[in-house]
């Protein structure tokens, strides 16, 4: 009590920030503790639900093998994602730039996106065999759609007045594209990267569980066939960590390169007139 009285201005703010930063960690650690206790108290069999300590032990025991497979998964994920960025950006710009291409391609893209990609993996296996290539292609197929849609949407949000100002000065479509359309679509592009990289990881792991002899997906499938459930969970943990890390990297890119978008938005919401 005396603490809060001695620094009345700083105290509420500091406490609020501590809550902010530590809340997810505390919830996470709390959940692990409850999990561990539940496993011990109810004597749950490790092949049904291994305790966190058992998973950690497995993680440590197999860490060299896991590292090799994780590297493979990361490799196919990033390669598929890279192809999706190039292809998605090109197609998004084309669709956003040309009304004809928009009309021609958009329904096809939507249709394509509603196909479950798992169903494509067997076909990829017929064409390319099992291994790296189907995983890269599956990662690509899953992740390129959000990039296309976001870039196209960004290009479509150019204000008509802005276009009038520039066109009346004799600007070509190309001028307007480079001066307004493309920069305007960058926040959409970077926002889509976060989603796309996560989907690429999903694609890689799916493909590895179906058709591969390496990668975390394969490792997990293999472990579950041997009833090594702690190792399955260890694989799951590694995938989760990978997912969070790559998401964080691209979220950082987003704020770094297109911070103006979020700041401009915040002001616009505040200032009504």
């Amino acid at each position, binding site marked *: 009590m005396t603490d809060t009285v001695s620094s009345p201005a700083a105290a509420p703010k500091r406490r609020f920030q501590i809550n902010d930063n530590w809340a997810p960690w505390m919830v996470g650690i709390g959940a692990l503790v409850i999990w561990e206790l539940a496993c011990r108290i109810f004597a749950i069999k490790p092949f049904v639900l291994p305790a966190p300590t058992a998973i950690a032990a497995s993680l440590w025991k197999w860490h060299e093998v896991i590292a090799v497979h994780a590297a493979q998964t990361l490799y196919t994920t990033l390669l598929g994602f890279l192809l999706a960025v190039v292809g998605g950006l090109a197609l998004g710009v084309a669709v956003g730039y040309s009304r004809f291409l928009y009309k021609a391609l958009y329904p096809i893209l939507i249709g394509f996106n509603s196909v479950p990609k798992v169903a494509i993996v067997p076909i990829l296996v017929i064409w390319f065999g099992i291994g790296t290539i189907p995983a890269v292609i599956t990662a690509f197929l899953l992740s390129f759609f959000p990039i296309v849609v976001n870039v196209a949407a960004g290009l479509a949000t150019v*204000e008509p007045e802005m276009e009038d100002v520039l066109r009346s000065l004799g600007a070509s479509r190309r001028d307007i594209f480079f001066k307004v359309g493309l920069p305007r679509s960058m926040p959409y592009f970077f926002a889509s990267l976060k989603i796309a990289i996560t989907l690429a990881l999903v694609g890689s792991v799916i493909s590895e569980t179906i058709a591969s002899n390496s990668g975390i997906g394969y490792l997990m499938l293999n472990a579950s066939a041997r009833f090594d459930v702690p190792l399955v969970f260890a694989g799951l943990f590694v995938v989760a960590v990978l997912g969070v890390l790559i998401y964080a990297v691209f979220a950082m890119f987003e704020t770094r390169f297109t911070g103006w978008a979020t700041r401009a938005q915040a002001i616009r919401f505040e200032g009504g007139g």
Partner: protein
Amino acid sequence: MALAEPAAPSTAGPPQDHFVSIRDVDLVYGRGETGMQALGGASIEVQKGGFAAVVGPSGCGKSSLMKLVTGLLPPTKGTISVAGKIVDGPVNVAGMAFQNPTLLPWRSTLQNIMLPLEVVEPHRRKLRRNRKDYEAQAHDLLAAVGLTGFADRAPWQLSGGMQQRASLCRALIHQPELLMLDEPFGALDAFTREELWSVLQKLWMERRFTVILVTHDLREAVYLADTIHVMSARPGRIVASRKVPLAYPRTLEDTFKPEFVDIVHELRHHISRERQAVS
């Protein structure tokens, strides 16, 4: 864009003293049965260095008229000429500003103002070599509208009124002979709006570009314009043109004088008659 009439320019060319001349212009959006006539026989003449205001009921085609004059749209019928030339494409000699200031959030205020220079000839070619001179001009303009010291701010750091000042600078940076304003102060509060009237009037008196101002604020029209054109409901045409015989520079004090108030009343009368014609 083809000419609407096979005109013989030597005889049908506009007289020298009319900088903008809109003659008997129709504009139909869409084609055939679904076509919607926005303008029907609109005619306006604006002298070089003149300040014309266009008022009228909402949806009567005022913004469409702006697009015709700047060459963004071809008229369905009639001719438009600007600076002695029949308009058959984007005119280049015009600056435009709208109710929405449309500043680009990833550029600083100065970079926003200099945007037209990156597009319009001949500045586009000269910009790289003469960057310093152009920047000096931009700073002068910023000073003229009261934005000294805001050049490096991002647009979202400016208030609505300041953004509109910057938008005005952007419209004037390439020293256009014609300034087209479409309800530029419509979204601002009354005090800011009146401040900007005097900023605009000062700029106009110093530089004497020709102005066409679309507005729904009758006091604004009378304060600023030398001639006010009242448009009918859609399809729009001009039903009355009124000269404003008050001396420049006009002040806020003038807006309370009987001559001023009488003109506002007269215009209001015209507009309400036009609005009744619709309903």
